[in-house]
């Protein structure tokens, strides 16, 4: 995802902060939009595995994700803003996850919750396990843990809100990701090369 360099804003952040200090509220459509979006992140009601239970726990009384305005777990992807990939994505499941992602309307965000969603986690050795959802779907926030505590998910959500607040309007995002297909031995393709470039491979030969 290469973002075009945002045009220099008419009022710099420093100037804005200065004005605020003097009791003057200067806002822009952009700021208002980002504010609204960041406080109304509706997750998709979509549980995959163990982490889904902690995701549910995060929406329950002890942790109460509702305080952030995010308790509206929408069952239909059309009304959701946030895809929390909460658990192991198997190869059998991966096309569905990508399809769900494609069905969500822009602007949409993705949190990879837990080790499995980030990298395949403890199950990464498995033949049917996708080694990280970021091979197919752009991920905004990674929340590590196995499973992450509900607080860790809330922390991830706060981070996401911060990220949304820093976004510029009109940033083009890849809205549709190609859906992989089932093949005889593996998914085809095994990754979305536009999203996923493996980092430089190994540190030392012959370890």
């Amino acid at each position, binding site marked *: 995802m290469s973002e075009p360099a945002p045009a220099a804003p008419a009022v710099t952040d420093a100037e804005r902060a200065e004005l605020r200090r003097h009791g003057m509220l200067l806002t822009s459509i952009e700021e208002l939009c980002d504010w609204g979006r960041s406080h109304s992140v509706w997750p998709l009601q979509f549980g995959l595995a163990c982490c889904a239970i902690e995701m549910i726990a995060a929406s329950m009384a*002890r942790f109460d994700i*509702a305080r952030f*305005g995010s308790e509206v777990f929408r069952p239909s992807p*059309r*009304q959701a803003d946030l895809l929390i990939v909460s658990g192991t994505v198997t190869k059998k499941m991966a096309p569905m996850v990508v399809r769900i992602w494609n069905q969500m*309307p822009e602007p949409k965000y993705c949190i990879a919750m837990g080790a499995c969603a980030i990298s395949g986690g403890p199950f990464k050795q498995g033949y049917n396990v996708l080694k990280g959802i970021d091979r197919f779907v752009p991920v905004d926030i990674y929340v590590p843990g196995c499973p992450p505590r509900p607080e860790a998910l809330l922390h991830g959500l706060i981070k996401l809100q911060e990220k949304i607040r820093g976004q510029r309007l009109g940033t083009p995002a890849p809205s549709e990701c190609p859906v992989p297909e089932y093949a005889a031995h593996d998914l085809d393709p095994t990754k979305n090369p536009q999203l996923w470039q493996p980092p430089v491979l190994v540190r030392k030969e012959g370890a």
Partner: protein
Amino acid sequence: MSAGPTDAHLLERAPFLLRDWLTHALPEPLRWFANTLIAIAAILAIFGTLFALLTLVERKVLGRVQNRPGPNRTGWFGILQPVADGIKMLTKEDIVPRAADPLLHFLAPVALLGFSVLTFAVIPYGRDLVAVRLDAGVLYFFAAGSATELSIFMAGWSSNNKYALVAAMRALAQLISYELPLLLSAVPVVLAAGTLSAPDIVESQGGFTWGFVPHWHVFTPWGAAAFLVFFISALSESNRSPFDLPEAESELIAGHLTEYSGFKYALFFMAEYFGMCSLCGMAVTLFLGGWQAPLAALEFIPSYAWFALKLCALLLVFIWIRATLPRLRMDQLTRFAWKFLVPLALVNLAASAFWSLSFGWAGPMQALRWAIGIALAVGPFVLLGRRLGAGIGPRTYRYA
């Protein structure tokens, strides 16, 4: 539109004074037009705000019932949460599925909202505070209200989604089943008041027995039963739990809303809340004395405040019920309507007729009148309830 009560005190007259102040500069023929526009704008503004607040209050009350605070960090105590939701909805991508019927897909939320708003026209919000004083206001209300379910069908059909289609079917079945008890439960009130005009029905509920029991219809045996039927049917008409079958998320994802995103979805949401508000408003009008104060001593509080208070109380009960009850099944829903509510409403018609006929009974006959009235209301409830609940009940268990 009347000129407003002239004998009442200032607060009571405040809405009219405000209106007249706004339009007094206009020439006479335009003034009527402007007055109407102002009424429409006021209703939209007030109920729009109420909708926004209601979403927040619902989330907060649900939270409190569930031992948690609910939204509380967007603005002071989360007061700006609906604003944030609105901004987000407005700026969200609008998706129309390729296989959908784009025109109907667009029209459904618009029509739904339109019909919901129409119902606001005839509800008396205060003394002489009614947008359109229709002679057949109650009839108009039910006609406009029942059109909303057709929009749900439109939405379900045009989405070209299986879940939405099933939801559309359910919406139709629900419409047919519950329109009837809703109407039938309103008929006794019309009988008693002798008018179809909503403001006149409220007027007819003025006055007090022994100085403290208001003459609201709900305080009569038939009125209580009719109120119950009306209230349950209203829950169903506004697709609220436990009758929210068209968007039963545990089986039909989001039902007719499955393919709606962005602001169209928000429109549906808004229309649903508008429908809820207008039905509660009608319940208040028909049974709870409308804008009448519950005590003569409290009549100094302006009438519209009483209406608002009663409306909010009813809405809270709606939310409370939603927080508690699971959902009925489709066949149970229709069975409940046809085998319980409709007979109850019909018997209740007789009960109210008896009540009207026995109007002149006095002294010991008054006690008899009450006894017969209560028997006519409670008896069918118990008997029908027993038939409805046949075969289900608590069980005892044995141990190996």
